[in-house]
């Protein structure tokens, strides 16, 4: 395989893997902070135990997010050195700011939080987790500012000798794209965390373990999840409309829309022929794509063939069509999972409000299974966003062919790719094993030492913390 393909594959694998952990960090940090705030406000031990239980799961997940994030920062230089040279004047800044503004804050205060239960006053301790929560979300903001530049470059000037320089820093951070992408990512994070908490709480509620604590957890998560999943869906709709304007090719491939149409129909299910660029079999709903794109029942949506011709005229000969099968299916998986999340979150709220949780064992099981749904949606969403930008690293400015490191051989890429796959593979097993173990063990078990104590039927948890 040629280096470009290997470098893309490596980016896809390491980024998707990193983003298994990030959304949960974004949302669960806030949920844990809310729980501890309730503890500090009410003094109720139940909230303290809740905080410690979810905090333990949070810490396991957080560690994975942090270490896999290092790869992301180094990878631009290692595999995409020409990209780094070309856009470094702009792209490096948000990454450095992310480190200064967020990485220090989250890493330092997570250490304080984990080790500080006995060292700090309650107020300072809860402040530490709020700072972690704030920093994680600020981190998301800055990396998405960097990504938004790739989706919709702004605030730059193209140099005659090649490369771009920053002309307008405020324009960069107020990139129109960020207003869609950042809330979408954060809401996805909150929804992921809400379903994580609901799913594990449901597991214990079905077994009547610590019902008080898990009922409160479920309640909190259902409330947050119902709000954020609805906002997420609404925001997703706006983001798609923005995409029609800024990256029409991404939308055209996500809809398998070969020819420009007005009004445009929405594909419910298409089997297409990528070579011939035509439908083999398709079921489409008239006018709905125009409706989605413009909130009215007519309006032109550009098709793949017209866009290809337009881009060839504008940027020179080449292939400007992403591998449509990925944007097309990931779009459907993301939206489908998203609707399911909205429905489940609202139903959860209904169960909570009607105090019906304990009487509905079947939905409870459903919520445990639904933990996987946000992960499916998150991964699909990023594959759509990134693959749909093909062939561009930065839309309209740098193609992937011109971005890859010229002096990194296929052999080196194979070595690192295989290395990541093995290490990441082993680590995902260890992580899932630990998460499942602590999730199932329930509130009493905050460490193996307490697990052992429980086995020996020593009721006291005194002296063991964390």
């Amino acid at each position: 395989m040629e280096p470009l393909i290997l470098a893309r594959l490596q980016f896809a694998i390491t980024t998707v893997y990193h983003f298994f952990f990030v959304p949960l960090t974004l949302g669960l940090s806030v949920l844990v902070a809310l729980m501890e705030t309730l503890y500090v406000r009410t003094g109720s031990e139940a909230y303290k135990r809740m905080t410690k239980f979810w905090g333990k799961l949070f810490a396991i997940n957080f560690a994975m997010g942090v270490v896999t994030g290092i790869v992301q920062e180094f990878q631009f230089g290692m595999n995409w050195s020409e990209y780094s040279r070309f856009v470094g004047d702009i792209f490096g800044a948000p990454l450095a700011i992310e480190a200064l503004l967020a990485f220090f804050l989250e890493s330092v205060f997570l250490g304080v939080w984990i080790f500080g239960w006995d060292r700090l006053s309650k107020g300072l301790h809860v402040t530490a987790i709020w700072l972690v929560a704030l920093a994680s979300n600020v981190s998301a903001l800055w990396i998405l500012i960097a990504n938004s530049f790739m989706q919709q470059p702004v605030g730059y000037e193209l140099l005659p000798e090649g490369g771009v320089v920053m002309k307008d820093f405020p324009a960069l951070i107020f990139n129109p794209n960020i207003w869609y992408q950042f809330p979408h990512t954060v809401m996805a994070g909150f929804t992921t965390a809400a379903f994580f908490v609901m799913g594990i709480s449901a597991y214990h509620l079905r077994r009547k373990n610590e019902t008080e604590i898990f009922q409160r957890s479920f309640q909190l998560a259902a409330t947050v999840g119902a709000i954020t999943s609805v906002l997420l869906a609404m925001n997703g709709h706006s983001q798609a409309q923005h995409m029609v304007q800024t990256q029409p090719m991404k939308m055209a491939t996500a809809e398998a829309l070969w020819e420009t149409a007005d009004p445009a129909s929405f594909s419910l299910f298409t089997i297409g022929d990528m070579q011939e660029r035509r439908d083999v079999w398709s079921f489409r709903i008239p006018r709905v794509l125009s409706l989605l794109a413009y909130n009215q029942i007519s309006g032109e949506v550009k098709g793949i063939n017209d866009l290809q011709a337009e881009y060839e005229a504008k940027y020179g000969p080449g292939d400007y069509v992403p591998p449509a099968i990925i944007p097309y299916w990931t779009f459907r998986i993301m939206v489908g999972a998203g609707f399911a999340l909205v429905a489940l979150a609202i139903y959860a709220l209904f169960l909570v409000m009607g105090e019906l949780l304990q009487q509905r064992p079947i939905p409870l099981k459903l919520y445990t299974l639904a933990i996987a749904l946000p992960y499916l949606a998150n991964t699909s969403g990023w594959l759509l966003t990134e693959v749909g930008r093909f062939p561009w690293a930065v839309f309209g400015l740098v193609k992937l062919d011109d971005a890859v490191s010229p002096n990194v051989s296929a052999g080196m890429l194979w070595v690192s790719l295989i290395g990541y796959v093995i290490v990441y593979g082993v680590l995902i097993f260890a992580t899932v094993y630990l998460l499942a173990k602590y999730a199932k063990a329930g509130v009493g078990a905050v460490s193996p030492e307490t697990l052992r104590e429980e086995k020996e039927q020593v009721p006291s948890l005194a002296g063991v913390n964390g």
Partner: protein
Amino acid sequence: MELNIVWFVLIAVLYIGFFVLEGFDFGVGILLPFLGKNDTERRAIINTIGPFWDGNEVWLLTAGGATFAAFPHWYATLFSGFYLPLFLLLMALILRGVAFEFRSKDDHPLWRSTWDWIIFGGSLAASLLLGVAFSNLVKGVPIDANMQYVGGFFNLLNPYALLGGVVAVLVFTLHGAIFLSLRTSGDLLDKARQAANRLWLPTVAVSLVFVVSTYFATDILTHLGVNPGPIPVLTTVALLLSGWFARRKHEGWAFAMTALAIAATFISVFMILYPRVMISSLNPAWSLTIDNASSSPYTLQVMTIVAVLLVPVILLYQGWTYWVFRKRIENKPEGLTY
């Protein structure tokens, strides 16, 4: 002052901060299997760096990000050029970081010993690789007229660089031993002191050889950048003093001396480099410098404002955490955070 000089200095400061801070937690990781003879001792050893290591590591991430932002060509040439060592460094940092969090989460002896050896191996490998990488930076590497690294992997494994790697391992281990003697109590304290005393002379001897060979392996004598003057010598003096203080049980002073030795080493490194950021061994004209590798003045301005606003705050709160966790770790299971 020109902003690219400011950023050269700031990146130097970030690396120095990284090595002074993460240096001791690498050292503690390397010492873990030797000093921790049972699970409680190993947990106590890990807890001496538990609240700190992640914050220490961010100095490296920030140095990387700052290099990208201020000197994109430096970032691109270095990271694509030192590809395999960096890949190995990433593996070491990933596994080691996860190990700190995971090792106590299951009490199966095999689970724990596996992660403990990963902490050891990751700390050792990271120290070695960083020592090798920085030695190659001052020695110079094959870079062509287009700023591309054209040497292979084995080019980086020359005797001088390998010696630099060994020095990094020894100095960080000594630094870690002295840190442990500041943070532990009872038996562990005795063992940490003993380790520091044993490590001291070999460390001084090997680093002296390294300092001397630096005069032969690099262009320190002919290069017209900034003459580091007596600073490399200060490295050796500080290391000598650290042992002297350690033997008299003045651990605070001993720690200050190993920190000073590490700082002096990297101050020398960046003074030898200046105004270059990567030295081409093929042709001096092909070296990357703070001028030809830097970002535009506008970007540097923006980043300077950001750094001036944020760096003091970071120093304050990170310093504060060292004050919060200043108490010695008791070597008793009931007092340990897991």
